[in-house]
């Protein structure tokens, strides 16, 4: 294989791959859009039950069309059959849910496996119908993308277009349904019908997806793109757009790659592509990805550590001098070590961090001294800490002897706006505030480990 061949395929220069790629990318976009609502409605498994329940419909439709003297493999006929039993499967799940006390997962598991088993049996039976070849019907189980012809493409495009139009037309209603069905219902929205419309949209995507990715994998096409998109955004509009895009990209890449290695099934490659995008999003997604969250956590830890170091130094300065104004004198490592509880290796690490941030400097004598900016920062941090302590004593009824620990947990999150509110609330605006409790090393050593 050459790069030219790869790029030719990705740029859709062959007529037959072009058709398939367009079809499947379009399908992916629609699946991403509709799948978002399926996911937000927390009905992903119902989609799976639906797709498995389409198989008997394919077999039955084949037999019916053959009996009527038509070609058993006409795509519209097969898809109608698939839709009917697919929806029947969903209705059965809903009926079991309503009439028995079985849990949802059990109801779906039963329907999914029974319908699928039934489908496999029916496919075997219709193979024996004389004069008709049922060969290839089992392609609906795993998908057979390469067999798409122009008339199939037109049918697929029309159904998908209708699906997208309907979804966009009732975007607001679907959002309301997914977020708060009870509220929607109390407002008079027919939630049952909205759920049925949503399932009909999912059915449309599913039966179209049968041909491309097969009924086992179609659920991945519905669910993976929206879950991946969710890692990047907290806004529904963006999530829908990203999900559709991820679906389309998975379809395009999946079909292209499988066209190059003709023995690789497209459905599997599409799902693997989507899964890779999902994995990437899970790690790097800016809104909820693991890495950005971890980095934010590290950042907070750094900030908390810095505040502990600076405040401790400042308190030592206060303790060792009397008389204003406070002078920025060097202090010994020992005093700092005894001043509060430090984790293992924490103090040297914080000092290193403080030096790199130019807050603290080491004297030739081995003593530590705040830099000018560090001194200002330390005074500010200490002041905020005491503001918060005073607030807790005054409004949260926390005893002065316990307040230091509680203040310790929250103060790192105080923004400028809250500090102003605290000042107003406590009627304090002077630049230094005395600690509401005694600061003695002995007491502080007994203090519990700071949580943040």
């Amino acid at each position: 294989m050459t790069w030219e061949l790869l790029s030719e395929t990705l740029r859709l220069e062959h007529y037959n791959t072009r058709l398939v790629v367009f079809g499947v990318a379009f399908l992916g976009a629609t699946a991403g859009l509709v799948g978002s609502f399926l996911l937000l409605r927390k009905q992903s498994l119902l989609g799976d039950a639906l797709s498995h329940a389409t198989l008997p419909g394919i077999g039955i439709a084949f037999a019916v069309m053959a009996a009527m003297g038509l070609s058993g493999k006409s795509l519209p006929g097969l898809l109608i059959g698939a839709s009917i039993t697919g929806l029947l499967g969903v209705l059965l799940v809903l009926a079991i849910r309503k009439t028995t006390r079985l849990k949802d997962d059990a109801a779906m598991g039963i329907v999914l496996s029974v319908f699928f088993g039934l489908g496999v049996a029916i496919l075997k039976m219709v193979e024996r119908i004389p004069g008709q070849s049922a060969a290839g019907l089992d392609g609906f189980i795993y998908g057979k993308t390469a067999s798409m012809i122009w008339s199939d493409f037109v049918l697929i495009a029309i159904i998908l277009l209708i699906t997208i139009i309907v979804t966009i037309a009732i975007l607001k209603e679907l959002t309301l349904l997914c977020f708060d069905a009870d509220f929607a219902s109390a407002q008079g929205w027919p939630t049952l019908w909205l759920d049925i419309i949503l399932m009909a949209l999912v059915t449309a995507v599913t039966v179209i997806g049968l041909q491309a990715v097969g009924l086992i994998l179609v659920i991945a096409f519905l669910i993976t793109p929206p879950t991946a998109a969710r890692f990047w955004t907290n806004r529904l509009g963006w999530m829908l757009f990203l999900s559709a895009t991820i679906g389309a990209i998975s379809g395009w890449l999946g079909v292209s790659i499988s066209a190059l290695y003709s023995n690789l099934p497209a459905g599997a490659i599409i799902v693997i592509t989507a899964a890779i995008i999902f994995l990437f999003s899970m790690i790097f997604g800016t809104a909820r990805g693991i890495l950005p969250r971890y980095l934010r956590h590290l950042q907070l830890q750094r900030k908390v550590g810095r505040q502990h170091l600076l405040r401790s130094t400042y308190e030592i300065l206060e303790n060792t001098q009397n008389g204003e104004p406070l002078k920025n004198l060097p202090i010994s490592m020992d005093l700092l070590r005894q001043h509060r509880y430090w984790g293992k290796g924490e103090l040297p690490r914080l000092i290193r961090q403080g030096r790199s941030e130019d807050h603290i400097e080491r004297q030739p004598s081995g003593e530590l001294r705040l830099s000018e900016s560090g001194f200002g920062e330390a005074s500010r941090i200490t002041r905020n800490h005491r503001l918060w302590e005073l607030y807790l004593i005054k409004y949260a009824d926390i005893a002065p002897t316990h307040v230091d620990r509680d203040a310790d947990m929250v103060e790192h999150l105080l923004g400028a706006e809250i500090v102003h509110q605290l000042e107003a609330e406590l009627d304090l605006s002077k630049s230094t505030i005395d600690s509401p409790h005694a600061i003695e090393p002995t007491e502080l050593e007994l203090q519990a480990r700071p949580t943040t």
Partner: protein
Amino acid sequence: MRPEHPPEFPLAIHDLTVAYHRKPVLWDVELNIPKGTLAGIVGPNGAGKSTLLKACLDLIPKTSGEALVYGKPYEQQRELIAYVPQRESVDWDFPISALDVVTMGTYQKLGWFKRITRSQKQQALEALEKVGISHLAKRQISQLSGGQQQRVFLARALVQEAEIYFMDEPFAAVDAATEQAIIELLQELNSKGKTVLCVHHDLATVSRYFDYLVLLNMRVVASGPTSETFTRENLQKTYGGKLNLLDDVAQALKNVGRP
């Protein structure tokens, strides 16, 4: 029209029974909630307080009986009622902002297929202003505190400009400032002649918050103006033996009759 439930009552419930899986949760409820009251529904866990609200809103089927809103069935009077469900009833991880949630209160008037315009957003923003969190309008709802989430729900109800407000535990697990803000808003609605029906848990605040009271334990134990209804005897009947176990109830009873 039933003589015992004249149409001037914002909510009249007649012979209401609700059962889950044939196990009754509410028995023969008879109630008239007078106009302009700030009414509390109080009772122990599992007494059917939320169920009562939901049955009136047709969210769960009634086994028998009916609930009338100004003399007519609820489905003809939907726009008169705003509903605030329990906060835990929705997924706060949902990818929308506070403003989006409040805008949902305008959907009923907006109707099918219509897009949300600036006018709806403006109404929603004003409602957020009233509950004191308009600066958080763009924030994703999972990044709000419990009290702020409850305020969002309240704002969504305010946007509906209803006559009757159904609130399911609006004070559950909110901070003191939010509780104060909510009760002030409810009292303001009340002063404009709106009727508020509120499922409530905290007996200590009953006499301060509500001027009308429904004591419920699967059936209506007592209902009427708080000053007459909130008595030791009625509470004993409602809470049974459990009452003696609750320290704060004793405190609450001391407050009976105080303004």
